[in-house]
């Protein structure tokens, strides 16, 4: 069943061979057959956030698949926060455990990736040598090579793409705002009915970053490492905006929900009428889970919304690197990606480029029903890239200095 595509992929990775830097006894992804052979029988500990039953169920499904196909036992280590896995690897490195680490693969992106890369906690490069990697059309999709502007350099393989969307209750809001200034006006007229998660939660960060990008005339500066002297001037419009917005927020901005889940509960309890999410299918999923009324719909701002891709990374000391690679490669396969995109299963967007797929494989995606509250890809608008992590860090620090006391 896998054979036909297999040969094609082998051919296409040939030019990438030069990139592969095999460590001493580490598996060499350019010799895929030997990776498969090594992987068989391995137990791969996949550290992934476990806060969503549908995600967990999907991972369970993947575990069955890789067991049947490759003889790999995949164990989902459920995390409350990705940084728990980073802590673990860090502790192991500190203790000198350089080859029998307990974390084989991490679901990661952005700041956590930057931190692990900076501190040499990652194995690789390996990702660009995976047989399925070309399906993401990396040459025409910069997002798979730059994670929050940080060059990926083959240290992680793309898995899922996501974009910030707002959602609102059509029973309570007639016309949702189209941009940040309109959101402010709306909040002023409907005090207490909007809020965003407390910075430095990633969705909270995303909201203030979105506001920053929308309110700034020149956004280019945010895509390079931050220089101290540019911060105050570049962010002044943001603080002016937030100072004005906060008194109109839920609890007058004296408290913030701690994460996107809290935010969703507030929406479910009718405490607020507009919220936001990092998943385009969140509203549909939550309606199916009885968490939101079925009058909720998604919308985006005219100028586009921040989006990013999340990845699979392998720690430098992972014990089962070959198994992890095989799983990461399978996660990029059209069938695994199509399964993931189905809102009935999870509803997380694919990272594959439709042009790279066969007609048959494309059909897998075309048949998916996105759910009532999900915007079709054509209406999601432009994807705004994540600024450099140094900007996001500085924004988060400044936000806390300003609003925590």
């Amino acid at each position, binding site marked *: 069943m896998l054979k036909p595509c297999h040969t094609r992929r082998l051919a296409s990775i040939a030019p990438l061979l030069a990139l592969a830097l095999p460590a001493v006894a580490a598996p060499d992804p350019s010799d895929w057959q030997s990776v498969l052979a090594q992987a068989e029988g391995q137990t791969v500990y996949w550290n992934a956030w476990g*806060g969503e039953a549908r995600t967990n169920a999907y991972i369970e499904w993947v575990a069955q698949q890789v067991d049947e196909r490759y003889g790999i036992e995949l164990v989902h280590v459920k995390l409350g926060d990705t940084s*728990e896995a980073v802590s*673990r690897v860090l502790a*192991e490195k500190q203790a000198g455990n350089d080859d029998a680490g*307990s974390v084989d693969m991490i679901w990661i992106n952005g700041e956590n990736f930057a931190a692990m890369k900076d501190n040499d906690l990652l194995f690789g490069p390996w990702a660009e040598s995976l047989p399925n990697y070309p399906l993401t059309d990396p040459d025409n999709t910069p997002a798979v090579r730059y994670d929050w502007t940080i060059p990926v350099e083959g240290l992680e393989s793309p898995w899922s793409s996501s974009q910030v969307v707002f959602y609102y209750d059509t029973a309570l809001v007639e016309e949702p705002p189209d941009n940040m200034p309109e959101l402010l006006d709306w909040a002023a007229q409907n005090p207490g009915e909007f809020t965003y998660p407390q910075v430095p939660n990633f969705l909270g960060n995303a909201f203030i970053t979105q506001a920053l990008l929308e309110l700034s005339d020149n956004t280019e500066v945010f895509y390079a490492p931050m220089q101290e002297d540019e911060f105050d001037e570049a962010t002044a419009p943001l603080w002016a905006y937030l100072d004005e917005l906060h008194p109109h927020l839920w609890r007058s901005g004296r*408290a913030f929900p701690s994460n996107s889940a809290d935010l969703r509960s507030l929406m479910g309890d009718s405490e607020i009428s507009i919220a936001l999410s990092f998943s385009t299918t969140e509203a549909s999923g939550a309606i199916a889970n009885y968490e939101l*009324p079925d009058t909720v719909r998604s919308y985006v701002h005219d100028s586009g919304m921040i989006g990013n891709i999340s990845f699979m990374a392998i720690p430098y000391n992972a014990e089962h690197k070959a198994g992890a690679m095989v799983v990461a490669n399978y996660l990029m396969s059209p069938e695994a990606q199509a399964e993931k995109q189905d809102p009935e299963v999870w509803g997380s967007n694919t990272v594959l480029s439709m042009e790279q797929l066969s007609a048959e494989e494309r059909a897998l995606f075309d048949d998916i029903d996105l759910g009532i509250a999900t915007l079709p890809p054509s209406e999601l608008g432009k994807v705004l890239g994540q600024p450099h992590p140094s900007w996001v860090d500085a924004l988060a620090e400044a936000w806390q200095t300003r609003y925590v006391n």
Partner: protein
Amino acid sequence: MLLRLAPWILISVLVVPLAAGLLMVILPAFGYLPVLGGETFHFDAWQALWQRPGLYRSILLSYASGLITTLVALAIVALFLAASRGTWLDRGIRRLVSPLLAIPHAAVAFGLAFLIAPSGLFVRWVSPGLTGWERPPDALIVNDPLGLSLMAGLVLKEVPFLLLMCLAALPQLDPERRVTLARSLGYSANIAWLKSVFPVLYPLIRLPVYAVIAYATSVVDMAMILGPTLPPTLSVSILGWFNDPDLDHRYMASAGAVLQLGVTLAALLTWWLGEQCVKRVSQGWLINGARNTGSMAIAVGGRLLLTTTTLLAISAIGGLVIFSVAGFWRFPDALPGTFTLDHWQRILPSVTTPLLNTLSVGLAATLSAAVMVVATLENAVRHHLPVSRSQWLLYLPLIVPQVAFLFGLVVAAESINVRPQMALVIAAHLLFVAPYLYLSLSEAYRRLDPRWMQAAHSLGASPWRAFWQVRLPLLLAPLLTACAVSLAVSIGQYLPTLLLGGGRVPTITTEAVAMASGGNRRLIAVLALLQALLPFIGFSLALLIPRLAWAKRRQMRGVA
């Protein structure tokens, strides 16, 4: 011979990992963390820490909530015991309280948050009828800046614990006789209890009280759910820094952990000073001869407070039950529009392994702790050893905040090449299980009439035969209760399980916390109820087994 070593084995099992963990967190606090390039000692982390926005508020919150919670919980327990006359009502209230021990902190917090939130059950029940509210009021109740809802949640959990500790210690004081005597001098029963029993009871429950203070100043899970957010309590901030993607925050996090230890110690010191003051000041009150002043207030207040606490906790659980079968539930409906078993069906298939892990870890930790603690106590009573000062060492794991040493402990375990595995998780649980077991068992053990063992010896029974055939059966009930408390403690552990198990030993609690991060209240409710199930079974068995075993032994049923 081995028995003589028992106390030292117990102390080293508890103190060595603690010391290793503390060391590994103190070093980074002063800049030493080679893996991140920190190879010199300096105070940068402390400077960064002091400059954190809201730090002083965080410290004050942790400090104050620890002391206030303890004071309120102790007052509720003392007033109830003073008012309690052993009527069926009093016994009923008492019986309702003990299962509350079984409910994990996080579950109580979730339940309470849902009761008192502006969109919570209480408001729903009176809206829109009484209030006219079609939308929840915009009021900051949960996560309030003063931490009042956090303290309320903590009180709900600490009252049952302190009550159990008091009930365990009381019989040796012969409270009835003291009260009867005072009443014969014209004191009302409530005042008689407060003046003649409480002053001698307090020294016996002092250590549990200190454990409560330490817990309340450093609690993480409840504070995340109920506590203030701008800024959060110190312990929550520290966890955030440890989890910060920017690894350089580790230095500050470590300094914060050391600071947390300081805050906890400061709270303990304050309490101790308070004790000294009360001792002086209360002398006058104790002997002022007032026999009835406040008696009525105590009689009503004591029962009312405990009943309220109990009912709140039970309603919180009731809320969880409703949520676990709720379809969509629009405000201000008093009940969900539809009911569904979807949530249970989604969770149940995946909880077999976590449940088995929870049980194995809990039983293993409890059994090993029981063996060590019983050996230590047996050694003490056999050799007529007084309660020694080294007993304090046993309580260190309860007094040193978890965040302060667990991260260091992981590094320490890795350094000696011990990989994450179930045995390591069990060892880590032992750190918290053993002190609680000791706490709950030692009074009963020491107060067992020594003549029972003398009678056995004089009939020719060897020390071991007397131990197995006389002491253990006589102590069956307290031993089982202590084991049930320990099992509940083990089941509630999150950080030790996750960190020492490397995430490879999923328990019902790690599942619940991971699920909590996704915020689906219905699924959280299912997991919280499942999490409460095992300890609940434990407590039920601890009650049932002695009843069945001693069905035909009248005197044994009276032994608590």
